[in-house]
């Protein structure tokens, strides 16, 4: 057991596949971990006809790029990926297997780890070297309210599996190499009967009627608003600012605002001039959708709410007092 293996994910909705940004971040995490431990780092891509994808990675400082090819890997299935990666890991015996923490990885990586009697350490935000040999892996608890340090108890018989949270490592810190990393094709033994689910092509619900991505000002409301009828309070503020109204997931889940106004990993990604978050805690799935905003203002009664980690200006207070006062002051300022 040695070395780091990073399992990449790619996007090919536009024709030619390329590694997703979050997997490049996981690759940066892999290089970092390998450097800390003084071991090799390799990457793996899965699919069919992925030669160009493997080549895109061979310029990075990697020991090898594994091209795991099979027709049954053309479309993602949990069974296909688990079988293929189980075989690759058995053969190459890495000490650490890293993934980007995507919806796809959530779907198969826990089952893959189980095959090795291991537990996936999911959604890791930082990796520190420690004197004991095994690294310290940091992840969040309580939706970002606390951090926790974990130490893998390595057995030498199975690798340690971990997935890396979006935005925790920088893809622009990736080390390149002048000599291209060798691409090693890996043949997988896979039969149609081993794949128990039949996926259909991805689709989007009917076209959105609000384009949050184009809005220069967004006022976004979260569960702190308590009741549907209170949304009007925030709507009045949005109107005063000439802003679009957006929301966190629970507001849309409850049907208080339509889903097309949801910001976050399963909703829209926005980067307005101003994002004003009202009663939103700042869970990672929300943050990934709005942290690129130019200025972020957060109003939350909990001074430790994670939203304040990304806010430029914060108000630790009761939205039911602050929002009306702010609306009034804005209207006054506009004359």
């Amino acid at each position, binding site marked *: 057991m040695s070395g780091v293996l990073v399992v990449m994910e790619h996007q090919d909705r536009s024709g030619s596949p390329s590694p997703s940004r979050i997997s490049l971040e996981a690759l940066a995490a892999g290089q970092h971990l390998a450097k800390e431990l003084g071991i090799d780092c390799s990457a793996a891509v899965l699919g069919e006809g992925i030669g160009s994808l493997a080549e895109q990675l061979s310029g990075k400082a990697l020991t090898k790029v594994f091209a795991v090819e099979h027709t049954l890997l053309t479309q993602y299935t*949990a*069974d296909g990926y688990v079988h293929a990666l189980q075989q690759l890991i058995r053969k190459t015996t890495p000490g650490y297997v890293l993934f980007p923490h*995507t*919806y796809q990885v*959530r*779907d*198969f*990586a*826990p*089952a893959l780890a*189980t*095959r090795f009697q*291991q*537990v996936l350490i999911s959604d890791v935000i930082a990796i520190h070297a420690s004197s004991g040999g095994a690294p*310290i892996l940091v992840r*969040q*608890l*309580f*939706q*970002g*309210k*606390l*951090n*926790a*340090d*974990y*130490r*893998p*108890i390595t057995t030498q018989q199975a690798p340690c599996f971990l997935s890396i949270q979006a935005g925790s490592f920088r893809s622009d810190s990736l080390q390149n190499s002048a000599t291209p990393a060798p691409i090693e094709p890996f043949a997988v033994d896979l039969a149609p009967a081993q794949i*128990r*689910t*039949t996926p*259909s092509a*991805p*689709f*989007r*619900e009917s076209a959105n009627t609000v384009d949050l991505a184009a809005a220069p000002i967004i006022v976004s409301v979260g*569960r702190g608003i308590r009741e549907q009828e209170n949304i009007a309070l925030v709507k009045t503020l949005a109107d005063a600012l000439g802003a679009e109204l957006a929301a966190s997931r629970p507001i*849309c*889940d409850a*049907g208080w605002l339509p*889903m097309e106004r949801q910001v976050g*990993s399963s*909703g*829209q990604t926005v980067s307005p*001039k101003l994002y004003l978050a009202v009663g939103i805690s700042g869970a990672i799935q929300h943050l990934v959708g709005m942290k690129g905003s*130019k*200025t972020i*203002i957060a109003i939350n009664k909990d*001074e430790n709410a994670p939203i304040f*980690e990304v*806010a430029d*200006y*914060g108000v*630790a*207070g009761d939205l039911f007092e*602050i929002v009306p*006062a*702010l609306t009034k*002051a804005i209207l006054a300022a506009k004359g």
Partner: protein
Amino acid sequence: MKIIVAIKQVPERDAQIIVAPDGKGVDDRDLAYTINEPDAYALEEALQLKEKNGGEVIALCAGPDRVASTLREALAKGADRAIHVNAGDLAQRDTLALAQLLADAIRPESPDLILTGLQSDDLGLGQTGVVLAELLGMPHATLIMHVEATSSGLRVKRELEDGWFQHLDMPLPALLTIQSGGNKLRYATLMGIKKAKSKPTATITASPATVPPTIELTRVYLPEKQKRTQMLTGTPAEIAVQLVEKLQSEVRVL
């Protein structure tokens, strides 16, 4: 269709989370508990499937004595019976060991379908369901918004990132992890609460963990602040004035 719903009891959302004195967990002395939110959606999906296709809904929860209240709530909402895997030492078990406990409780029931939440609000591991499916040798699908019974099994709607979705067909028995928002949650009625009292709850005492955990939690702490947020203070009116000033001169949106 015989459906088992795995439900976790977690601290309430607005609970003040305090690090325990030993720095290895949270102080649970004053915590109030509730059902993990995605699990409430999993229960709702199960109840609707039963209403459409007939069958039975069984709520399953591993945890100490206090989780009985959450199981009672599931019964009040319409689950037919409950299984409590009584274990006071879950913090000492990793996901694999927890999933083993759940798998042991599930096997004798031979359900057609198992539903879990996609993620717990406290630990946020997002994997117990998938591990459970693997231990039981069942196909699974995650982040499910909608479930429909078909002649050959199930057709489910799975959420992908950025507002994309996908349908999957799969045979039964199967395990699904349920994403929030697919249904409207029901409340327990007075009648339901009354009926719950006479519904059966089986209690299984968890056998001690046999395999050592694969990971060790070494420290729990408040995240270090990375960014310097400028906090505005004063009365609401004073704060409003400061904000308007920022909006005018710095953000330039007014």
